[in-house]
C-alpha cells in the first residue's frame, strides 16, 4: 500500500531518483539543492541504491560526467541550482544536442551579484534555450511524480532528450509536505529500464560529438528543434500513463477557476499555489478571475495557451525573473509572442516579483491582479511592472 508520508521535498526527489533505479549520479552540492544529492550519496554509500556516485569538483564536471554516463546508456541523474547551473551552462547544450536523456532537478535560485541563496527563476531563464525539456512543479508531490515522468519522457525512443524539473528553492526544497511515495514494483512497471538505442559500444562503434561544418549545422539544429517540439506528444502520453498508474494527472497548464473569467493570472512554480488563494478570495467577492498554472515550459505549449486565454480580456503574467534592458519578464514576453498573431487577443500585462526570495502573499497576488486590470483598462501599460519594489 502506498504510504503518504511527511517528508522534505528534496528527500522525496532523492527517493524518486532511487525508485527510478538510476545508474549514475554525478553532482556538486549547492544551496538549495544540496539535500537531494546528499541523500543520494548516502543511499549509494549504504548500499540502498546500486549506483555510481561521482563527487565531482564543479558543476561543469558534473554535467560532463553525465554526458559520459548517458552516452553508454546508463540512467543518469543530477541536480543543481543558480551559479551551479550557470557553471554547467555550455555543457547543457551538448547534452540536448547529443540527445542524452539525463534528468536534472533544478532548485530554482537567484543569481549573483549580490549573493542570494534565495529563490527566483533567474537561473532557469538563463538556460531557457539550451534545448532541454523543462517542467515546473508547484508542490512536493508534483516534484516526486515528475522526476519519475522525466525519465520516462526523456528515454522514450521518439524523444531522447534531457529533462529539467524545476522546483522552487526553499519554498519547495526545504519544506516538509505530505507526499505519496510510490512503491517500487509500480514504479518499475511504469518506468522500464533505459534502453538507449545508440550507446557507445566497442562492438558497434559510433562517433559522438563530431565536427559540424556550415553545410550540415543548420540541418542538425533543425532536426534538434523538431525533436524537442514533437516531444510534446510523448510528454502528454507519459503524463496520461502516469495518471492511469498512480491516479495523479498532469498537463502542460492547469486552469484554476477559469470558467467565465475575464481576468486571468498566469504563474509558474510554487507561487501559483499562493495565487490560488488570491483567486478564491476574489471569486468569493464576485470577481471573474482565474489562474493559469504553467507547468510545461519547454516545449512551449502554444496551442494550450491560446485556447486557455481565448475568452479573457486581460492576462496578467507573473514572472520571477527579469530580462535586463529587454521586455521585462521572460514568461510574459513569450505569452505576448504566442498571442500576437491572434485576431482577438487579451491585453497582456507583465509583473515581475518574488525576486531573490521576496515573498508574494495571497494579498499580494490580489493586488497584482487588481493593478493589472486597472492598467489594462486605462491603457497605461509599460513593458513590465515590478511588484513590491520600494520607490
Amino acid at each position, binding site marked *: 500500500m502506498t504510504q503518504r508520508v511527511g517528508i522534505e521535498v528534496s528527500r522525496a526527489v532523492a527517493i524518486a531518483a532511487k525508485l527510478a533505479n538510476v545508474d549514475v549520479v554525478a553532482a556538486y552540492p549547492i544551496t538549495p539543492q544540496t539535500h537531494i544529492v546528499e541523500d543520494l550519496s548516502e543511499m549509494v554509500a549504504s548500499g540502498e541504491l546500486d549506483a555510481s556516485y561521482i563527487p565531482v569538483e564543479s558543476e561543469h564536471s558534473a554535467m560532463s560526467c553525465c554526458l559520459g554516463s548517458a552516452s553508454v546508456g546508463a540512467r543518469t541523474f543530477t541536480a543543481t541550482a543558480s551559479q551551479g547551473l550557470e557553471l554547467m551552462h555550455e555543457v547543457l547544450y551538448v547534452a540536448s*544536442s*547529443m*540527445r*542524452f536523456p539525463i534528468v536534472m532537478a533544478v532548485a530554482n535560485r537567484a543569481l549573483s551579484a549580490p549573493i542570494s541563496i534565495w529563490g527566483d527563476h533567474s537561473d532557469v531563464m538563463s538556460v531557457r534555450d539550451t534545448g532541454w525539456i523543462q517542467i515546473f512543479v508547484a508542490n512536493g508531490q508534483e516534484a516526486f511524480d515528475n522526476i519519475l515522468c522525466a525519465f520516462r519522457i526523456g528515454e522514450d525512443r521518439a524523444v*531522447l532528450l534531457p529533462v529539467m524539473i524545476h522546483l522552487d528553492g526553499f519554498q519547495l526544497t526545504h519544506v516538509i509536505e505530505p507526499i505519496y511515495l510510490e512503491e517500487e514494483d509500480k514504479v518499475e512497471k511504469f518506468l522500464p529500464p533505459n534502453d538507449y*538505442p*545508440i550507446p557507445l559500444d566497442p562492438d558497434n*562503434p*559510433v*562517433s*559522438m560529438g*563530431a565536427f*559540424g*561544418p556550415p*553545410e*550540415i549545422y*543548420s*540541418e*542538425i539544429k*533543425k*532536426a534538434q528543434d*523538431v525533436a524537442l517540439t514533437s516531444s510534446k506528444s510523448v510528454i502528454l502520453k507519459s503524463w496520461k500513463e502516469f495518471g492511469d498508474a498512480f491516479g495523479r494527472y498532469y498537463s502542460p497548464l492547469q486552469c484554476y477557476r477559469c470558467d467565465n473569467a475575464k481576468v486571468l493570472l498566469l504563474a509558474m512554480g510554487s507561487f501559483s499555489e499562493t495565487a490560488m488563494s488570491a483567486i478564491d478570495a476574489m471569486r468569493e467577492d464576485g470577481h471573474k478571475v482565474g489562474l493559469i498554472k504553467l507547468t510545461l515550459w519547454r516545449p512551449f505549449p502554444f496551442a494550450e495557451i491560446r485556447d486557455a486565454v481565448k475568452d479573457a480580456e486581460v492576462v496578467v503574467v507573473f514572472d520571477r525573473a527579469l530580462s535586463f534592458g529587454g521586455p521585462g519578464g521572460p514568461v510574459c514576453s513569450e505569452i505576448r509572442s504566442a498571442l500576437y498573431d491572434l485576431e482577438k487577443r487579451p491585453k497582456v500585462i507583465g509583473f515581475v516579483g518574488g525576486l531573490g526570495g521576496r515573498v508574494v502573499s495571497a494579498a499580494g497576488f490580489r493586488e497584482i491582479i487588481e493593478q493589472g486590470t486597472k492598467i489594462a483598462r486605462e491603457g497605461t501599460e509599460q513593458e513590465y511592472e515590478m511588484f513590491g519594489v520600494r520607490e
Partner: protein
Amino acid sequence: MTESEKKPTWRDIEIGAIIKEPGSAMQYKTGDWRTQRPTYYHERCIKCGLCSIFCPEGCIKQTEEGYFEADLDYCKGCGICARECWTKAINMVEED
C-alpha cells in the same frame, strides 16, 4: 562532401548527429574552404619537394613526372607552398 553527392536534409540527420561509419572523415573534402588555389610553372620547378614538407595539410604529392602538386580536394589555399618555393614555381590565383 562534393557538389555531386546528394546533401542530407534535416530528416536524414542521425540522432545526436552521431557518425556510424568509421573513418568517414575521409569523405569530407576540406578543399571547399579554399578561396585561392596554387598554379604551377613546371619550367621553374626543380622537384625539391620543399612545398610538400611545408604544406600544413600534407596534401602535396609527387606526380609520375616528378613534379609536386596539391590535391585540390584537401588544399585549403593557405599559400604557404607558394611563399616557401624558392624558385617561385608556385603562384596563388583566386578561385572563381
